[in-house]
């Protein structure tokens, strides 16, 4: 999806250079400045007012959003922020900017050893594009302090970002997945029992949407498993 909006990998690199006048007309795939302004409109920090032509990578963007949010006063209604964010179609394009071959999921394993549960660590994850890792930390922070608005917003944002990332990999939910590996070779796959359960549900007739209904797992987990299976080419789509 949205192939055309994808910024070629070289360009992402280019954007880190100062050489910006080449492509000022291409809108940032996800305008974090605007987003930050929108959600932080009750705040007072002027520093987020940036040059509209400056291209900002999503990483630094989210980081700044987080910084901004960290300074926000308590009592700010996070659910409202999320509702706004949800409808912001630009968010979906965030992934277009993640360089090919770069896989946030792969970072999960590496992250497991890190047990730093701090806002700083969370923001670092976001900056590194490891949304799954950031989400994990954000959830822990929320569990520790339910009023931690910036963690809550980060969790929601990461969830949204991850959901769209997985959705981009598996495509529309009306698609019907099929198992590509012969049954007698299943046991050689390196998957866990949850992915095994998912595979058992794939019957060549059920749509992705039906699988989500059947999965017995949180939607995000299901999407992740399906997108992993698709990436490993264990499943494909009719």
């Amino acid at each position: 999806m949205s192939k055309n909006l994808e910024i070629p990998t070289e360009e992402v690199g280019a954007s880190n250079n100062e050489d910006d006048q080449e492509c000022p007309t291409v809108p940032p795939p996800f305008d974090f400045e605007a987003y930050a302004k929108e959600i932080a409109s009750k705040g007072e920090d002027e520093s987020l007012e940036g040059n509209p032509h400056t291209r900002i990578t999503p990483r630094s963007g989210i980081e700044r959003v987080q910084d901004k949010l960290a300074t926000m006063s308590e009592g700010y209604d996070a659910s409202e922020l999320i509702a706004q964010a949800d409808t912001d179609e630009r968010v979906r394009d965030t992934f277009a900017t993640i360089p090919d071959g770069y896989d946030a999921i792969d970072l999960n394993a590496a992250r497991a050893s890190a047990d730093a549960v701090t806002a700083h660590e969370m923001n670092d994850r976001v900056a590194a594009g490891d949304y799954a890792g950031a989400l994990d930390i954000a959830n822990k922070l929320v569990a520790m302090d339910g009023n931690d608005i910036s963690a809550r917003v980060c969790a929601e944002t990461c969830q949204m970002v991850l959901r769209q990332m997985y959705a981009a990999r598996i495509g529309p939910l009306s698609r019907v997945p099929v198992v590509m590996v012969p049954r007698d070779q299943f046991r050689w796959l390196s998957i866990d029992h949850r992915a095994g359960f998912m595979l058992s549900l794939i019957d060549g007739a059920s749509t992705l949407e039906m699988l989500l209904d059947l999965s017995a797992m949180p939607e995000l987990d299901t999407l992740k498993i399906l997108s992993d299976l698709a990436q490993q080419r264990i499943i494909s789509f009719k």
Partner: protein
Amino acid sequence: MEKVIGIDLGTTNSCVAIVENGAPVVIPNRGGYKTTPSMVAVTEAGKRLVGHIAKRQAITNAENTVYAAKRLIGRKWTSPQVKNSIAMSSYRIVEGPHRDVRIVLREKEFGVPEISAMVLQEMKVIAEDYLGEAVHKAVVTVPAYFNDNQRQATKDAGEIAGLDVIRIINEPTAAALSYGFGRNVEKTVAVYDFGGGTFDISVLEIGAHGVFKVIATAGDTFLGGEDIDARVIDWLVEGFKEEHGIDLRQDRMALQRLKDAAEKAKCELSSVRETEVNLPFIISNGRNEALHLQRTLTRQELEELSSDLIERTIDICKQTLEDAKLEKDEIEEVVLVGGMTRMPKIQASVEQFFEKEPNKGVHPDEVVALGASIQGAALTDDRHQMVLLDVTPHALGIMTFGSYFEELIPQNTTVPTHRTKIFTTSRDHQTAVKILVMQGESERAEDNELLGEFILTGLRRAPKGTVEIEVTFEINADGIVSVRAKDFETGLEQSIQVTATSGLTRDEIKTMMDDAKGDLVDRRTSEEFEAKKQEADKLIAEIEKLFPQVEQIVASSDFGREAIEKAKAIVGKARTAIERRDVAAIKEQIEGLTRTHRMFKGVVAKT
């Protein structure tokens, strides 16, 4: 002529059939299956699932999946059956406002007929999809032992689903009809019905002129194929525990797969002698390694695992014949009904017991629906062949002194009918009598179902046994029972009309009907949504294909850049509308997308 469908609303599965060109046929559902699980679930996201999809998540979402609602329909909260169901069910069963039963799904309370209505509605839609036209009328089957309240509740379920249930018939009767009995043959037929959740044995006396008398019926509403599945699951779980030291029951995903695999293996063993149960990645061990379950089950092992259950059905048959004072050789035909009777061991056990080869169709789980459709066609056919006459499913009477049940209208009486009996007072100087109207076959009043009560007052003070009271029961053609008590001397009388009740009021039924209609609209909208979504998706894809080219062409002009921004906004909005499943919004965006697409094509074409 309006089409009438026949529906077998089963405890575990339902089936719909219709007579086409003179022959009854079962209508397959969208998945191609001829029976549909009678299950209803609500997902975490609040989505309602009915049928196969509900079954596939029945264990992983056990608290919010209703199965076997039939065991509860039309029953009072206080009935032992309900107590049993509460103990056995994973979903929440609560007391309703009229001493009835309600089911809680994700915080919302549903009447039992309302749940059954969801299944009936599914069957209605299956028929409508197949026929390509709306269906309004149905014949629905119920077990022979269902009392008037349970029958009424089943009718109410039909009404909620938008179906006029023109006749309720007994399952064994329907089965016998589809096996071709009843055409001018007078016969005594035993119907052995072993389904997914219940076992029933009924003996029918088929007389001339379409009278099917149920002369004996018994069974176990908690004995079915699922109990055999459970045995297979136990066997698999124990084997796995021995091998790996892990109890698969702790994991719902594992249990869901075990359940599906156990039933599948059981069914396969009806036609092959051994089968492999293969469940890779069933669970992970402590070291995070996925483990696999792989075992071979033979037919003989399955028979051993289930032998006592099969034995129990035969014991019930034996008891039923004894109670009805019937000899085995008085049974002229034996008919097999229910999916479980595909199992060779069961067929053999039945044959051995009745000492005759049973009639077995190819699809024992479809015969009840087929019979219902035959009856549906007969009811609308002018030639009126084989129209069943309504008979009273149970005896009607009153409670007398000492808690005895005095029968006025016997079981199997064809309606309309009326009967009168004289009673006297049981105490000296008694000035009032209470008439308790009951239904059932037991001599002990408390074992029967209380249908209603009223008091006749103003009796002459006299020694017991001297004041005579005439009690009359009348059942009209619509099945409504009136009871009248009259004091002979004074001519004073008192009466009531006993209407069977499902436990729901008219108003409640009305509201539930509206809700059900709303759901159907939702469902139809979802079809519309799919169509519009596809249209929008196609346009978006085409626009996006053109984006790079258009961008290149118009990048130099402010106007062009603005146009591109606008186009992107439209695509974004369309995506949001799709994500929200908002059909109206998608339609609106399709217009914008069409315009954009046209413009883009124009721009590209000009260069």
